[in-house]
């Protein structure tokens, strides 16, 4: 049984129970009221008739008694009226043929013998007729009795009508309730069904499934959370894939290192030997030179490749970021001048040292400088390098941040996500390894590298590296 059916069923049962209770209660009260009213009327009619009859009874004015009786007999519930003298003789009866007869039923005898001027109502069970009797009293002398028989036929009919009406209202309420329950069930189960479908789709691997519930209730929140979950799952899987790629690359690189790099030195050496031997030979010189250059280029490519895959000779030490940047700039000074690239530096003072491999960090900076130069839009270019400290009082979480902001071509949005992928490049001569290497180096240093860009305007590369203090240092700082 699905959720909606359960909901509808339980609502239906609930309504049915409530309606039944309500109908039962109302009906019971109403029946009591109708019967009570009838009884009161019977008492009053009998009482009034008894009081009104005294004089006529005393004066043998039977035609007047008959008149009173006729009036009372017009009440639809009244079956019969009789006026009986104290000996049980029917002096007047609504049915003329009974006038003069003697009554001797138990009720009448009981009433006749009762000296108390009180009412008695007897219910004779089978016929559901009610008998009311009152003594006709002239002072303290009992002349006779008035006896009125009333039928509950009309009352029963009224109760029946009322019951039918109530049942109809009940049925109507039930129908409306069930329709409402169906509607509500649809409203509740629809988003659940969609979430269930989404979960099913995700379990089958479709991480792009959209649940699309915009309501502002718990379902909306659930849907958003679901969406957030699939997005993160997707990212996680993507990063797993990337790691896998890099792992494969690493294996690949070590093969290359052994199988490709090893023969490269003899080739290069052989080319140099050839050059030495045939110093004068222009042709040899030319081709050996090509061999040498290509080998160098291949070698440096392999270096990068290996660096990415299997960083070697990593030597971590406390380093000053500023001096590293300056060293890199000095190294590339010639290249920058050649490409008319201006570099603005703004260092914040008293930056703490970071713990890392200076060579690798320099390699990152060098890469970024080269990228900036290559992204130049015009003849001249500008690169702003800025460093600062970020973080709260908790030393361990302080970060040294270095921004490289160039005003070059920028990066199209669609490329931003893939820019750190190995072999991904937009340049004709690029290997697609530069930023991959940067990323792996920075991550190796427990740092982060982010790129923001405005196409045709600027590109900002922001690196942050955690400040790591030695234990003694921390203690001394705390003491200060």
């Amino acid at each position, binding site marked *: 049984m699905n959720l909606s059916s359960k909901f509808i069923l339980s609502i239906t049962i609930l309504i049915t129970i409530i309606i039944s209770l309500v109908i039962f209660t109302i009906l019971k009260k109403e029946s009591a009221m109708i019967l009570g009213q009838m009884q009161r009327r019977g008492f009053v009619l009998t009482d009034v008739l008894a009081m009104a009859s005294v004089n006529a009874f005393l004066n043998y004015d039977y035609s007047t008694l008959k008149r009173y009786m006729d*009036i009372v007999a017009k009440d639809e519930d009244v079956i019969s009226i009789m006026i009986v003298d104290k000996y049980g003789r029917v002096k007047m009866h609504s049915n003329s043929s009974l006038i003069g007869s003697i009554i001797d039923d138990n009720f009448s005898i009981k009433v006749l013998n009762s000296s108390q001027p009180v009412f008695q109502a007897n219910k004779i069970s089978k016929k559901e007729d009610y008998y009311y009797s009152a003594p006709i009293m002239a002072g303290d002398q009992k002349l006779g009795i008035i006896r009125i028989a009333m039928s509950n036929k009309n009352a029963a009919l009224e109760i029946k009508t009322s019951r039918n009406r109530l049942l109809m209202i009940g049925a109507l309420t039930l129908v409306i309730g069930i329709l409402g329950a169906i509607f509500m069930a649809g409203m509740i189960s629809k988003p659940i069904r969609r979430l269930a479908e989404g979960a099913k789709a995700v379990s089958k691997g479709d991480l792009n499934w959209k649940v699309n519930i915009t309501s502002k209730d718990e379902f909306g929140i659930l849907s958003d959370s679901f969406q957030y979950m699939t997005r993160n799952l997707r990212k996680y899987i993507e990063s797993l894939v990337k790691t896998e790629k890099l792992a494969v690359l690493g294996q690949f690189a070590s093969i290359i290192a052994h199988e490709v790099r090893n023969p490269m030195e003899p080739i290069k050496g052989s080319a140099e030997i050839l050059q030495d031997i045939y110093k004068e030979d222009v042709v040899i010189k030319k081709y050996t030179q090509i061999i040498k250059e290509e080998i160098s280029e291949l070698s440096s490519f392999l270096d990068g490749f290996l660096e990415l895959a299997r960083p070697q000779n990593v030597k971590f030490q406390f380093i000053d970021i500023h001096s590293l940047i300056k060293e890199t700039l000095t190294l590339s000074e010639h290249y920058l001048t050649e490409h008319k690239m201006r570099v603005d530096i703004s260092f914040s003072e008293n930056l703490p040292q970071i713990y890392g491999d200076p060579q690798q960090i320099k390699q990152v900076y060098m890469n970024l400088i080269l990228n900036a130069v290559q992204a130049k839009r015009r003849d001249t270019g500008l690169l702003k390098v800025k460093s600062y400290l970020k973080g709260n009082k908790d030393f361990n979480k302080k970060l040294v941040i270095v921004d490289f902001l160039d005003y070059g071509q920028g990066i199209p949005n669609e490329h931003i996500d893939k820019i750190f992928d190995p072999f991904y490049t937009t340049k004709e001569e690029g290997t697609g390894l530069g930023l991959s290497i940067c990323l792996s180096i920075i991550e190796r240093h427990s740092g982060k590298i982010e790129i923001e860009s405005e196409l045709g305007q600027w590109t900002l590369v922001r690196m942050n590296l955690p400040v790591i203090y030695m234990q003694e240092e921390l203690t001394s700082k705390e003491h200060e």
Partner: protein
Amino acid sequence: MKILIKFLTYHSFKHTLFKIHVLIALYFLLPVSNLLYAQHIDATLRFGHITAENPTIIFKKYKPILNIISKEIGAEVILVQTTSYSKMQKAFLDKEIDIGILNTFSYITISDKAELIPLVRRVMNKSGNYQSYIIVRKNGNIKGYSDIKGKILAFQDPYSTSGYLVPKIMLINNGIDPEKDLKEVLFIGTHDSIIYAVLNCTADVGTVASYIFDSADPKIKDKIEVLEKSKPIPLGPMVIRRDLGKELADKIKITMLGLEKSKEGRITLQNAKLRRFEDAKDSDYDILRKMVEFLKKGDKGK
């Protein structure tokens, strides 16, 4: 007074919800309805009717006739009833009533003293006469005059013609002295009540006007036997006090005699269970005067 009488007609009121109220009203009215006196207002003609029947029935029967008289003479005519014939006679003598219908016995009793002019006589059947019935229960043991001895007898009123005078003479003529030979003599007030009284064993023998018995509920008549019927008796006249003038008397007489000539009049007559009114003379009632004489002699003889 008019309003009070009107209350009595409420029995025709259909709405059941008001029944209790009507009953309560009846209860409070009861002492009043037993003796209905008119207040003396000059512009009003007070019409008395002897209580042969239940006042409600009489009111129903005569109100339309009273309306016609009222229209004719240009004065209000109100119906006045009393609980007994003697009270009606007294009301005439005291000039508390101006005009009205008297029973025969009452008429001959007071016509001279009250200076009454007989105007018209009610005609119910072919003639303006009726009879007195002596009635008994069918299942009772009274088969003839002789069985009446030792029984309870119901007269209507000591001044009733068919409910006292005539049957009393009939009994006497058949050897029954009502004052000696009967267990009990009751005066029951109205003819219709006498029928019920015989039926419900209040009395064993009843004396009743033929026109009232004949129009009774057939179911009741089924259980009642008419033991004896009297010779025809002239119905009591409609009378007016002489001091109100001949002009008014003639006007009313002509109106009454003319009722059977118009459709409206015929409906009115029918409603009062009358065929017509016929001219009445004082001498019409001489036969009754003789009967009274006879009774008086009898009394003297004791």
